[in-house]
């Protein structure tokens, strides 16, 4: 089990149908996806770590006519939505899918494909980010929970059980914990943590050359099966019933998987804003305090390390670029 999403990650750099309900999120996701190759190259040259970023396009497979109909409706709604980036999502019949995924089982009736989807080795990403930070002179203080943020002179004074730290500028990027931190600088961050489980198999020769939203083969050969969602923030225990549904669906998609041994199962906590979309804000009452949190930390890593970080350095979040992601969107008055 892992409390931190960065260690439990499924490692997709995913675009397909993101932004339904908030077209700006589709635009921002495509921006990050398009920036990912450069981001991976920069991190590799900084650290010598190959992140194995690939963007072959990704699939969503349907195992019944009902699933297929539901998927069709989502894609139609997505394409009808105004204002977003109208990227391509193809709806594919079973025979077309079999040309790209020859190992699919007889239960696969159809699905969708988006050429912008990709994946990465997220453990190597995690390590490369830490290594790059340390080479840039960043001090990392794990297990220093922030208990208060005050002001002294022109500085922020950050209290932890291990002492206080001063800073001229702060960015709250603590995932689900931002809900508690945000009010310390006059912001809000409504979060709704989710549990997710992942099954990992032994390493096998590459057979799956495209990632799925729920199944992927890593650069080192393991197959990851995932995408469960449960409310809650307790990572302990593991729900075997959920694992058996995930394993059963995976084997129906690719019957050959039944031959493989499972070597690990884990459960971790997803960072999840209440409406599923990122939150980026800067405080009016506490100038110099910023907040950034989102569910898709790997997909959006390139946009965060580039575009968003630049705005924070410059001291102003660009309204046109990220204004739609302010938590002001939660501030809707109830009508009696």
């Amino acid at each position, binding site marked *: 089990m892992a409390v931190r999403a960065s260690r439990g990650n499924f490692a997709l750099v995913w675009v397909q149908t993101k932004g339904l309900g908030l077209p700006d999120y589709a635009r921002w996701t495509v921006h990050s996806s398009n920036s990912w190759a450069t981001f991976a190259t920069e991190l590799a040259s900084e650290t010598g770590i190959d992140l194995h970023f690939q963007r072959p396009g990704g699939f969503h497979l349907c195992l019944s006519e009902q699933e297929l109909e539901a998927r069709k409706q989502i894609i139609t709604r997505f394409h009808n939505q105004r204002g977003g980036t109208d990227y391509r999502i193809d709806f594919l019949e079973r025979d077309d899918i079999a040309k790209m995924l020859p190992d699919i089982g007889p239960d696969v009736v159809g699905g969708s494909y988006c050429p912008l989807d990709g994946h990465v080795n997220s453990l190597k990403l995690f390590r490369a980010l830490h290594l790059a930070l340390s080479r840039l002179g960043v001090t990392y203080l794990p297990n220093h929970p922030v208990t208060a943020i005050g002001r002294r002179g022109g500085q922020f004074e950050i209290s932890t059980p291990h002492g206080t730290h001063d800073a001229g500028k702060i960015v709250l990027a603590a995932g689900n914990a931002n809900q508690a931190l945000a009010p310390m600088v006059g912001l809000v961050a409504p979060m709704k943590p989710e549990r997710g489980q992942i099954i990992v198999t*032994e*390493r*096998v*020769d590459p057979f799956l050359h495209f990632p799925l939203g729920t199944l992927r083969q890593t650069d*080192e*050969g393991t197959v990851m099966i995932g995408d469960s969602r449960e409310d809650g923030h307790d990572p302990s225990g593991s729900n075997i019933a959920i694992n058996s549904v995930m394993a059963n669906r995976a084997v129906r998609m690719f019957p*050959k*998987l039944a*031959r493989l041994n499972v070597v690990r199962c884990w459960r971790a906590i997803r960072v999840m804003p209440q409406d599923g979309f990122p939150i980026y804000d800067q405080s009016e009452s506490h100038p110099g305090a910023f907040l950034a949190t989102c569910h898709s930390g790997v997909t959006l890593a390139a946009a965060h390390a580039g575009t968003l970080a630049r705005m924070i350095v410059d001291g102003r979040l660009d309204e046109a670029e990220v204004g739609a992601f302010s938590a002001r969107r939660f501030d809707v008055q109830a009508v009696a």
Partner: protein
Amino acid sequence: MFKRLRENPVEAVTITVDGSALKARAGDTVAAALLAHGVSHVRTTPVSGAPRAPYCLMGVCFDCLVTIDGVGNRQACLEPVRDGMRVETQHGKRKIGS
């Protein structure tokens, strides 16, 4: 390198290793039979390709993985030999078809 303690009159079993016949004894594990025959490694690792041999001989280290009768990644130290058993050493990742 390894020697049997006594030449007990135990029933002989023939297995094949990468297609060649190998004499083992009933009661041997596949790993013991391979080591007694002077096999220095049984596989190469999936990522770096480093050679690996049976190590713990009690089922916990997973270094002795071989393909047995067409099924990959079997633990040689936990499988008793059977007459006619086909053992193949592994090179890199297991094939999903095996």
